[in-house]
């Protein structure tokens, strides 16, 4: 079948009618566009103005410091390491049972897919999301967050993000 055999719907109409219809369509379209000019702006000029993210925002990960113990709440159960789909959390610890000491808690943020499963399974809310979204660097190696970085990334006041955790 060739294209010539399939006429456009307005093929029968005269050229003049089509021109007029086209003009009318343009005017109607432009009217809507013009109306939008007088509506409130919906964009923000990003680096100058910043958007507020929701409390549940899947931003960077952090290990907030618990003011009572002056340490993070990690109990070294390795659940987050195990559940991570990208295997980007690396935990090492020394000692046994109650005396375990966290020696390494690395998150490769370049691999992280921000799925939040680690936050979900953590039994003590030791690992949390922080509402922060500017994580780009010039160097990939900077995206390896170690224990210090994760402590530092946490906000000073205790996390009260409104995230309702679901317990199993």
């Amino acid at each position, binding site marked *: *079948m*060739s*294209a010539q055999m*399939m*006429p*456009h*719907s*307005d093929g029968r109409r005269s050229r003049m009618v*089509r021109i007029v*219809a*086209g003009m*009318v*369509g*343009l005017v*109607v*379209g432009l*009217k*809507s*566009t013009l109306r*939008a000019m007088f509506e409130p702006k*919906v964009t923000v000029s990003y680096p100058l103005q910043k958007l507020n*993210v*929701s*409390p*549940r*925002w*899947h931003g960077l990960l952090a290990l907030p410091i618990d003011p009572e113990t002056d340490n993070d709440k990690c109990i070294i159960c390795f*659940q987050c390491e195990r*559940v*991570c*789909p990208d295997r980007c959390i690396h935990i090492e610890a020394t000692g046994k049972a109650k005396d375990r000491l966290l020696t390494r808690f690395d998150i490769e943020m370049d691999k992280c*897919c*921000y*799925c*939040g*499963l680690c936050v*979900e*399974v953590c039994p003590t809310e030791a690992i949390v*999301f922080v509402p922060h979204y500017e994580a780009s660097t010039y160097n990939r190696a900077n995206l390896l967050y170690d224990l210090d970085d994760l402590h530092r990334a946490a906000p000073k006041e205790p996390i009260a993000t*409104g*995230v*309702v955790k*679901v317990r*199993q």
Partner: protein
Amino acid sequence: MALRTEELMLNMGPQHPSTHGVLRMVVTLDGENVVDVQPDIGYLHSSVEKMMENRTYLQNIALVDRGMDYLSAMANEEVWVLACERLGKIEVPERARYIRTIMLELQRISSHLIWLGTFGIDLGAFTAFLWAMRERERIMDLFESATGGRLHHVYFRIGGVFEDLPEGWTDRCEEFCDYFLDRLPEYDELLTGNPIFLARTQGVGVLPLDTAIAMGASGPVARASGLAYDVRKAHPYEVYERVEFDIPVRSEGDCYARYLVRLEEMRQSVRIIRQCLERLPAGEIRSKVAVTLRLPKGEVYARTESPRGDLGIYLVSDGADRPYRVKIRAPAFSNLYALTEMMRGWKVADVIAILGSIDIVLSDVDR
């Protein structure tokens, strides 16, 4: 004296602004007329099916978000958790089912908006794109406040949803519904009645009904050809059997019909969302499911209506904590195959319009 002519092979893509991703089309042209189109796919192939075999059922929720159709992550999560729940006979609390339906329909609107915008760009109407993005941004905000993610939510869980809706979310969702219905007529002004838009879409890229079925087309593409089939009606999941909505069907099978079907689908989605919000029950949002879930041995095929069509997962479990084999039936894959039939005989300028009208997402095609 007859001029000597020959057919011309034209490569569109893989880097081409109108191919909506990394799609290469080998177009054979006779003058300006398309003789044959061979889509060349696979540039975005990530073998999701293989990756899923190496992840637990829970981890796979995060994977299907990204690995499949990235514009409708909720729909991907839905089909995955649905397959797991059917095989494991896991109950989902009422409230979670309503929440899921709301999310799925919001996702459908957002996906159709992206399509509407890019289709507008393809045909030279840039304003439609900006406006569609503006509307979509509101949905993204709704998603963000409920799930924490804008594109990739990881919100559905096997046996429910992750978290309950935050306070005031339903009001904001209601607000969005009103806002969106107010905005939709603007698109009518901009596109539906626009003679240039009509001339470029009406009667273009006709896909007859029998061809559509034989080639496996589904979703809005098939419905625009007259196939009155929607998984939400034919095999209801979640709460679709309890809400009232219509399935828009057109018989023309051209680009314009596909456009009208999607536009009407957005209206119907708003209708579904409103009914769900009205009836949203209180209660549990998640039943108890172990983190390392082991599904019983067996096989199941779950299918849902994603924004692009008939999205299914055939899940084979051997009783381990991760699936033995997952086959993803991607709607865009079959719809793209039907493209070869739609394009034959049209002008090279129509190629863009026809490709734009079938709404492909290359990560869904290639998986």
